[in-house]
């Protein structure tokens, strides 16, 4: 038995959820529904066109469905045999042609947009070139024109076109900044992918790895920080400047022997793992421990606390990552965390 009441009851929760969802379309710095740059904007426009067409289709089908379900229910005791209709060529042609027309309306802008977004900016002198290399589970950003390398936080000058060359050092990952641009896979081997985007407004945008890449796939976040061009220039020169080692000789020794074998700071250290220069001015440690003096959630804390939490047991924060547990005394741990928590780059004014 399905009466009118039940249909209303069935639709009510759906409508309630719709209303709930549409009033809150996510965060400005994350949601694809709140585009913050021209590339995401173009994709959003295509999404809106598609959604509009699809809503029309869904409404038509739902309307016909409800009409037939209610109108042609069998009455109790009804033994009549309905007319056995074979089909209707006119109707069948209509519902072949209408979808084709709808697909043309959607298909033309789709193809235009495909070619538009595949423009290659790698040889454009006005664009900022960035080589993105993904690792389990962190991101390396190299600026070949400026001769600097950083990790986890992609600092860009606002308004400029950023030309990305993306590759992977291990497994397939996918580079995604929802509010600025769609994603592109990073493939291992010589298979380098290109994309571009720009951020007209200053701000921090959240980026994510979108391809399953191992246990900590879901924790492989990064940030894109758009700053004005003067700040960007200051940032580049600050990255190149030499960095003082820890003052305490014991801490210094531990830092050089146990950290700099893999990590780099300024002009010292190894390149295998994330470059730590200016780590204290990044928004997060390890991409997910958010630096804040007013922690609300369990993944938030001060820079010092976050660094300590990470260094003392990296696998508890990001399971399966390559750092593993480093043998440090409590003193060394404190000293290194404190030293790193003061490693700031003051480039924003």
């Amino acid at each position, binding site marked *: 038995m399905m009466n009118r009441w039940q249909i209303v009851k069935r639709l009510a929760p759906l409508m309630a959820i719709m209303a709930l969802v549409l009033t809150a*379309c996510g965060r400005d710095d994350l949601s694809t529904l709140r585009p913050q740059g021209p590339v995401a904007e173009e994709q959003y426009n295509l999404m809106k066109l598609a959604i509009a067409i699809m809503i029309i289709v869904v409404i038509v*089908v739902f309307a*016909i469905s409800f009409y037939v379900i209610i109108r042609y229910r069998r009455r109790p005791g009804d033994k009549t045999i*309905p007319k056995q209709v074979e089909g209707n060529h006119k109707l069948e042609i209509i519902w072949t042609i209408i979808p084709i027309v709808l697909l043309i309306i959607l298909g033309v802008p789709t193809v235009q947009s495909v070619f538009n977004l595949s423009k290659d900016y790698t040889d454009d002198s006005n664009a900022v070139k960035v080589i993105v290399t993904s690792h389990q589970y962190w991101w390396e950003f190299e600026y070949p024109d400026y001769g600097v390398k950083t990790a986890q936080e992609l600092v860009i000058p606002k308004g400029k076109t950023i030309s990305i060359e993306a590759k992977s050092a*291990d497994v397939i990952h996918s580079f995604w900044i929802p509010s600025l641009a769609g994603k592109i896979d990073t*493939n291992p081997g010589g*298979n380098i992918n290109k994309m571009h985007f720009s951020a007209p407004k200053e701000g921090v945008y959240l980026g994510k790895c979108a391809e399953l890449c191992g246990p*900590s796939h*879901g924790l492989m976040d990064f940030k894109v920080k758009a700053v004005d061009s003067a700040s960007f220039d200051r940032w580049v020169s600050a990255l190149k400047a030499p960095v003082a080692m820890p003052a305490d000789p014991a801490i210094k020794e531990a830092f050089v022997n146990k950290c700099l074998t893999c990590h780099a700071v300024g002009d010292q250290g190894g390149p295998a793992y994330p470059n730590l220069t200016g780590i204290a001015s990044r928004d997060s440690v390890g991409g997910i421990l958010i630096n804040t003096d007013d922690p*609300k959630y369990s993944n938030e804390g001060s820079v010092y606390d976050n660094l300590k939490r990470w260094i003392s047991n990296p696998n508890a924060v990001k399971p399966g990552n390559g750092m593993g547990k480093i043998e440090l005394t409590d003193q060394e741990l404190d000293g290194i965390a404190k030293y790193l928590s003061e490693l700031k780059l003051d480039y924003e004014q």
Partner: protein
Amino acid sequence: MDWLTTVDHKKIGILYMIAGGFFFLVGGLEAILIRIQLWKPLNDFVDANTYNQLLTMHGTTMIFLAAMPLLFALMNCIIPLQIGARDVAFPFVNALGFWTFFLGGVLLNISWFAGGAPAAGWTAYATLSGDTFSSGHGLDFYVIGLQIAGIGTLVGGINFLVTIINMRAPGMSFMRMPMFTWTIFITSALILFAFPALTVGLVALMFDRLFGANFFEPSAGGNAVLWEHIFWIFGHPEVYILILPAFGVISEVISTFSRKRLFGYSSMVFATILIGFLGFMVWAHHMFTTGLGPVANSLFSIATMLIAVPTGIKIFNWLFTMWGGSIRFTTANLFAVGFVPTFVMGGVTGVMLAAAPADFQYHDSYFVVAHFHYVIVGGLILGIFAGLHYWWPKIFGRMLNEGLGKLTFWTFFIGFHLTFFVQHFLGLMGMPRRIWTYLDGLGFNELNLISTIGAFLMGFGTIFFLLNIVVTAFKPANAAADPWEDGRTLEWTISSPAPEYNFAQTPLVRSYDAFWKEKMDGNHAMTPAEPLGPIHMPSPSILPLFMSIGLFIAGLGFMYQKDWDNHLGVYMGIFGLIITFFCMMLRSLRDDHGYHIEPDDIHDQGVKA
């Protein structure tokens, strides 16, 4: 013992149903665990590794070990009856198909107890699935288990192609075939072309993992993207392998319970063939973000969108089958009617995904998770539920309880929409798929909670269905031959459950909807096409089971050859293969002509001459 040696299509169908149902529960439990983990941010109900194993096994199990076997259950039980045949073309191969599927599935699930299940996603993308990044045996279980199970699917597909082409009753031309038979026919053709691609990929991956080959290892000249192509050349047709039979079920159920002929039969046939064909042309739409370039992306975008046209034809034909009909809302029909709008929602998001630039945003996000669950659960599983409720009396001779059936429908249906509708928005808000946990404060919390509640409701729906089966099993098997009274096709002309030989006399088919035509002409049964005579039956055989056990042992042996000393694994592998080949030899050398059922022993006279 009878069940281990049977070659009867109806019993094999029931075996498929039990095994597929069991794996459906396993996959469902995995889904519930996944949703418990995601019900709140930064949850640590399961650890990251276990979570990835759960999501991999959920996908693999549901696709290969639940959905396909349940379809095989329906097609085994029904297709020979629907075309007026006495069995499938190769009954022995049919049994072999079941046992390889079952033991392949068991092998895959043993991984849970042997140091960890595969954790690279059901798509097992290289290089994550290579032995550098997945060093345990989990992925070995995946490649070997699926190869063994794949044999079953492939031989099953071939079997049904031959059966449908060769064994239709006299008078049943292709354009008089019931819609379900048509869809199974196209599905079997898709299996024939798609599964070899999967097997090639799995063999290559097996060589990479077990014998140090480098098909997919870039550092040694291989190519990780190659795996994506091979996988999706199989994987996309697979979607249609799953959904076409559901289309067939829906066509039968809606037509029966509307007491009306299927609207636009010939355009339905045409649409089915077209969908099957296009299904092979669109695999790269899973790879828009892989970096294929704008030309490939445009072509695959447009080709993908085109699938909406034949699908649209089907949707409107179903709606117009109901139009002007006399619709009876049995549980089976509730599922079928619920299927139509639900599947449309899955279909339209499919067209949205086909727009490549927009897909750069949707891809690998929860939007995709929502989309394919709308297609696979909202399409296929609703279709399977409709089919099970519809044909249950024909298969078991008992009617399922309608009250419990309706309870099943409403909890499952509401739970389904609650679970997956909100996931569209999660994806658009920036939540990637396959993530073990998410940070707090991103705005994902409420919708994930709703989704988890929905998943529990779906679980309750499934429990009600199980309860229904149990309750029904205690009732006497007294269903009428045509229990819905509006049966239109041949399976409703014989007693419920069908006798061992199906049709005492092969019926003569005089039109589309053969039984309906006879009823309208005032006949109560089909006109037979042959005199009553001895019926030839194939002998039962234990060999299919032993052949599959041989493969199972061989798989385990080769998997562990690297770990065990003294080449024990290799010997075990060879021993397993010897069992299989010995059984094949026995089968080849022994001349078995089967046996006959004499006319005197045909108790149920079937149709009267």
